[in-house]
């Protein structure tokens, strides 16, 4: 094996390492930006249980299976579960967070368009998992 040049290998290794660093840095940065919760975000306590979602607003009002929010206001979801692991998902807003018994997971989002959007459970949680759905109503905040 002696005598041949190894610089192509080193260039290859360098390029691979640079790409991995770049991919890692990009992903880390986007995660950091996305997870930064605005200070004025309104808290909504989300509770999953077989097989429906309960939402509790800051003023204490509760909703079951549907959630009404105002356009242009950031909301912070504090997500928990009463029984098994669920996953709180609003596909149109790329909100996805596990609901785990004994623990509160946090995710925030900003509704920007009025309308109705599906909410669903994204972690198989038993017989009626497929029907553990809700509706997000984004209303005009003005």
């Amino acid at each position: 094996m002696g005598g041949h040049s190894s610089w192509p290998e080193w260039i290859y290794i360098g390029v691979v390492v640079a790409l991995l660093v770049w991919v890692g840095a990009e992903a880390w940065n986007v995660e950091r930006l996305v997870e930064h919760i605005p200070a004025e975000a309104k808290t909504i306590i989300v509770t999953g249980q077989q097989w429906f979602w309960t939402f509790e607003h800051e003023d204490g009002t509760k909703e079951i299976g549907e959630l009404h929010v105002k356009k242009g206001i950031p909301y912070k979801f504090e997500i928990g579960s009463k029984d098994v692991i669920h996953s709180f998902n609003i596909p149109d807003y790329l909100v996805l967070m596990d609901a785990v018994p004994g623990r509160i997971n946090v995710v925030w989002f900003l509704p920007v368009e009025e309308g109705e959007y599906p909410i669903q459970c994204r972690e198989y949680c038993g017989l009626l998992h497929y029907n553990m759905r809700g509706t997000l109503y984004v209303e005009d905040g003005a």
Partner: protein
Amino acid sequence: MLSILVILPSVQYVFAAEEPGEYLDRRVEIWNLFFRMMTVAFVVGAVVSGTLIWLIWRFRESHPKAKPTSYEEKGVW
């Protein structure tokens, strides 16, 4: 190349760290990340598979410029 891949993005992050947009749209950030990663994935895929295809084509036994390795030539390993 190294500066494009590593140094410039790092500099961007340092400045971006000052103002993590309070009202950024997570959909935009996440989909943009996805598209950037897909661009990298397809470029890497093309380069790697292209290299392999060229390597196999160039170093096949029937290639006009093919020559035996020194081991094969001498019949000793």
